[in-house]
C-alpha cells in the first residue's frame, strides 16, 4: 500500500472529509488507477464498519462515510477505462421497504453497506408491493432478500410478502432478513423471516454468513 493510499484510508476512516476528498483528487490527477483507489475506499469502510461494531462509531459516521465514498466514486468512475471486471461470484440481494411504508433512511444505509461490502444489491425502493418483490426475485435469483419497515403496519406487509414468496415457489434456497424501527425476534417469528438485524452492520454480517461471502 502506497503512502498516499494509506493516508486516504486513514482520512476516510477518521472522518476527515475535506482531506479525504483532496487526497483522492490528487491521486487521480497523478495517475493512480481508479479501480485501486476504489479498493482502498473499501478497506477504509472495513475499518468504519469495525468501529461501528465496537461501539466507537455511530449512524452519523456511517452516513458521513457514505457521503465520502459517493463523492470519491463520482470522481473515479469517469476515469475507469475498461468495464469493471464483473465478479460472477458476487452474491445478489434484493431489498426494499415493504408496502405501506415509505421510510428510506435505514434501507438506504443497508443498501450502501451491502454494496460496499461486495454484494450485488437490487434496491426496489419504498412502499414496494408484494408483486414487485416476486418479480425481482424471479428475475434476479438472489441468495438473500431484505425487507425493511419502520411502521407497525410493516409487520403484516413483511409477513404477506414472505408468504407470497413461498406461494410463488421462490422460497427454496432463499434466505430472508428483516429490519427497521421496532423489528425484534418476535416479529421475525411472526413474519417467518430467517433473521432480523438491528442495524446495517448486522445486515452485512447476516448476509456474509448466509452467502459465505468474503465481502
Amino acid at each position: 500500500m502506497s503512502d498516499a493510499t494509506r493516508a486516504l484510508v486513514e482520512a476516510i476512516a477518521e472522518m476527515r472529509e475535506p482531506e479525504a476528498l483532496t487526497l483522492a483528487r490528487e491521486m487521480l490527477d497523478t495517475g493512480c488507477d481508479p479501480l485501486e483507489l476504489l479498493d482502498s475506499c473499501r478497506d477504509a469502510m472495513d475499518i468504519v464498519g469495525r468501529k461501528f461494531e465496537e461501539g466507537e462509531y455511530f449512524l452519523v459516521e456511517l452516513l458521513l462515510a457514505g457521503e465520502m465514498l459517493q463523492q470519491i466514486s463520482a470522481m473515479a468512475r469517469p476515469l475507469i477505462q475498461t468495464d469493471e471486471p464483473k465478479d460472477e461470484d458476487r452474491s445478489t440481494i434484493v431489498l426494499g421497504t415493504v408496502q405501506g411504508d415509505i421510510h428510506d433512511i435505514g434501507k438506504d444505509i443497508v443498501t450502501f453497506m451491502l454494496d460496499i461490502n461486495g454484494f450485488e444489491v437490487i434496491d426496489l425502493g419504498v412502499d414496494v408491493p408484494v408483486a414487485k418483490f416476486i418479480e425481482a426475485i424471479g428475475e434476479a435469483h438472489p441468495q438473500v432478500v431484505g425487507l425493511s419497515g419502520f411502521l407497525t403496519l410493516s409487520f403484516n406487509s413483511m409477513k404477506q410478502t414472505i408468504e407470497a414468496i413461498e406461494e410463488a415457489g421462490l422460497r427454496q434456497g432463499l434466505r430472508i432478513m428483516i429490519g427497521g424501527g421496532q423489528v425484534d425476534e418476535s416479529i421475525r417469528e411472526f413474519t417467518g423471516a430467517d433473521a432480523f438485524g438491528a442495524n446495517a452492520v448486522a445486515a452485512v454480517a447476516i448476509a456474509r454468513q448466509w452467502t459465505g461471502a468474503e465481502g
Partner: protein
Amino acid sequence: MTASASAAGELYAEREKRVRDAIELRTPDRVPIIFFCHFWAARYAGMSFREAMYDCEKLNEAARKAILELEPDIFQLPHAAVNLGRPMELMDYKQLEWPGHRGVDPNVPYQYLDREYMLAEEYQEYIFDPTGFMLRKYLPRVAGVFEPFAMLPEVSTLFYLKLIHSTAAVATPAMAEAGRALFQAGRESQQMLGTSAQLIAELTELGFPNNNLSFTSAPFDMFADYFRGSKGAMLDMIRHPDDLLAAMDKAAEILIRGVLADAAITGAQTVFIPLHWCLDGFMSPAQFETFFWPPLRKLLCALVEADLVPHVLWEGDCTTRLETIADVPRAKLVYFFERTDLFRAKEVLGDTVCLRGNVPAPMLTTGTPDDVRGFCRRLIEGVGRDGGLILDGGIGIPDDAKPENVRAMFASVAEYGA
C-alpha cells in the same frame, strides 16, 4: 348534584390524584394508565384511517367508545395529531403523505417526508432573523399556500411610511387566494378543536381527566426532522458544528416562548416532546452531550420553571443516555421510554422522574393477551408499585394493536397495580 355526577366527580379526583402522585414520585393507590394512540381508536371503531383524518364527529365517537371501555386514568385524544386532512389539503402541506391523499392507501398512517427543507448555508440567515427566514423561505417550501409569502418585503424594515407602502407588495391575486385558503384551513382547524373540546367536556363529566397538552421538539430534532432533514442535521454535527449549535441556541429560546404562549391560551399543563434522533446507535455519547442534551435540557428546565410537566418520549433504546438525562429537577417530569429497559431506567432515574411506558409495540401488535399481562405484571410489580410509573405502550397504543391485547394492558393495572 345527582348521585352519578357526584360519583363521576369522585372518580375524576381519584384518577387525577393517582396520576399526580405517580408524577410527583409518591406512592399512588395503584399504578395509573394513560390512553394515547394515533389511529388505533379509529380502526377499533371500524373507521378507515382516511376517515379519521377527515371526519371529526366520527373520530369523537371512536375515541369515546375506546375511552369508556378501557377506563384510563388520563387520556390524550388523537384528534390534534390525526384529524388534519382538510386543513392540510387546503394548505397544500408538503411534509406529510397521508391516507387517501395522492394515491396513498386509505388505511396506512400518515408518514413524514424526511427531506432537506433548509440548506446548511442558511443557518446564518436563520440565526440572524428567524422570523424573516420562516416567513419568506421556510413556509413557502413546506406548504403551497405560503408560496406568495416568498415575495413579502423585509418585515423588520416595516416602520413609519414604509409600512404603508409595503401594502402594495401584498395586494396580489396570489396573496388574496392564500388569504382565502388560510381562512378556510383555519375554520377547519377551529372545528376540529371545537369538536374535540366537546368530547373532552363530556368525558370530564363522566370522570375522565384529559391530559391537556401542548407539544414541541428538542432543538436538535426540530432541525433534523423539519428543517435540514435527518441526514443533513446528523452530518452538520461534523460539517457545520458551530452553525448548528448557534441555531439550536436560538431555537431553544423560540421553542420555550412558543410553548408558554400556547399554554397561556389553551391552559395546557403538560408538554409532549417526542425525541427522534438521539437514540443509542444514532449518535455518540459525546455528540449527545454536545449537541442534543444541552439545548433540550434548557428547554425542559424552562418548562418546569413555568409549572408545566414535560412528557419526554425517548424513542428507541436510550440506555446509554440515562445517567446524563438524570440531571433535571426532581419529581417534575415524565420520561416516556419506547424500548429502553424500564428496570434499568428505574435504577438510574427512579428518584428523579416518573417513567412512562412501555409495553412493546410488537407485543401489542402480534403477541397474545397472556404475553401482555405477564409483561405488565413484571413492570407494575418491579417498577411501578411505589410510584413513578404511568403504564402505556412503548409509543402509546400502536395503530395495529390487537384489541384483546389493549384490553389486557388496561385490565392489568386493576389486577396487579395496587
